[in-house]
């Protein structure tokens, strides 16, 4: 199971990094989402993988570590919120600029 889990994290991270390096906003956002999936799985595994074990001490033995599950829940909520924010920002940028490239023209500055 560990090997499968590790491969899943690796695949998600690789897909995420590849998409993040694209020039358009939507693939970049998708890439960030994939990366956060990979990271969430990694965080979940930091409490060791256990099968058929409830996160309750003493029942049954052995028990799973509950803390990484709580951490992962927090991380999922945060990355969900952040994805929503960057999505709105990308749509706003597209509507204002008329294109969805992620690179900046450095000579332009905002008009106050």
């Amino acid at each position, binding site marked *: 199971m560990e090997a499968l889990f590790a491969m899943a994290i690796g695949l998600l991270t690789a897909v995420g990094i590849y998409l993040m390096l694209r020039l358009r906003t939507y693939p970049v956002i998708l890439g960030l989402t994939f990366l956060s999936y990979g990271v969430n799985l990694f965080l979940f595994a930091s409490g060791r993988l256990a099968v058929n074990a409830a996160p309750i001490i003493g029942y049954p033995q052995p028990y799973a570590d509950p803390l990484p599950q709580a951490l992962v829940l927090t991380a999922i909520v945060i990355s969900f919120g952040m994805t929503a924010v960057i999505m709105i*920002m990308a749509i706003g940028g597209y509507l204002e600029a008329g294109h969805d490239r992620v690179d900046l023209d*450095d000579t332009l*500055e905002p008009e106050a």
Partner: protein
Amino acid sequence: MSHWIIAPVVLPALVAAFMIILFRGRLMLQRLTSVAAVLALNAVALALLMSATTTGAQAYFLGDWPAPFGIVLVLDRLSALMLALGAGLGLVTVVYAIGSGWDAKGAHFHPLLQFLLMGINGAFLTGDAFNLFVFFEVLLIASYGLMVHGGGANRLRAGLQYIAFNLVGSALFLVALGLLYAVTGTLNLADLAVKLPDLPEGDAALLRVAAVLLLLVFAIKGALVPLQLWLPGTYANAPGVVAAMFAVMTKVGAYAVIRFGTLVFPMDLAATNLLYASLLLPAGLATLGIGAIGTLGATTLPRLAAFAGIASMGTVFVAIAHFTPAATASALYYIVHSTLATALIFLVADLISRRRAHSGLQDCPPVAQPGLMGALFLAASIALAGIPPLSGFVGKLLILDAWRDHAFAVWSAILVSSFLMILGLARAGSHLFWKPEGEAPKAKVEPVALLATLGLVAGLVALTVFAGPVTDWLAETAEALHDPAGYIAANRLPTGG
């Protein structure tokens, strides 16, 4: 146990929420509430600063859960100092935003600023690594909103880059926390400090990976080369008043490096040893160089300010990299100075840009009120370049003194970069004020905005005049950082567990 420790987090959170619910669209009421709230925050921060000075490190156990099972907030001299610095800058920012009318250019400026203060205060206070991540996200999500305040295509697109960069940083942070938890089973900073020396040898490699990943995350926040790429575009495109407030956000990165480098991964920890020092010094020197060269080549005034800010972060990280009490004290002095000076140059850049046809440094349109603006620009330049009589000079002198053992590399880098910055700032100043073509726009009378800007100048002057007592206080703070027994004791960890 003092309940006031949580006030810097709760107060801005409640005020922001109330402002959105009750004063939606009523700018005057929002302004009054916001000023009252930052004044109260300043009072609390000063009270906490005095309490930390007299009684040392104290912990606040959220929900009365004992550490390391619950989350703790720890107030020590360093976090109290950073709280006061952030609150002071918050006051200047709010007053300037009101005086310059920036807060009327879009919705929710004041609530977002309060949320930003909440995140910054939380990051300075927390004694738990995962909670630090959460507060980072709080301050970042508020900063995303502030960064695009006022709108416009360039600002939105620069904001997109800024968010993407920081989301990658958050992902790295989570990986680092996962690794830390996997090898130690705890995320409480004091508990980590206790457990790491007894780490089995086989886990040392994983711990080093976690330490470097954490350093990367803090380097992104602190704009350390090669992770500074997001800063010029973000700060130059953000509203000037927001960029000034962001001056304390880069310091969150510096604060986190000091905290982890002295408490969790101290120099005498076998597994990480000199890791932080050996990575920070070259990166800090490179940051200093790129910042100084950037000021020389900047095409617009806000970009010039952004690169000057990068250079001062480089100086801060060089000072931190020595990891001795004297050097840490000089780093803390320079952090205070750099926050005030960077905020000042952004406010001055904003004042000047709104008195000209555009913010570029070529084919210069004239500035209205050139005398006053020129004097402010001169003050900001003196502070940033680190020449007498302002506190930048004192700060750089302290850093040079602390680095006496590697005088050749460090001294030449700091002195040459200071020279380059003098050149860059003088070039910008002469273009701005001595080569005007055409007619100046009408003078703007903004007494409140000027008052806020002069407040920063007064802060710099005070930091210079009271350099003696301030450095004494900082020296004691640095001693406490390098001998964190008091910080660990405040957490009241169970013994023998």
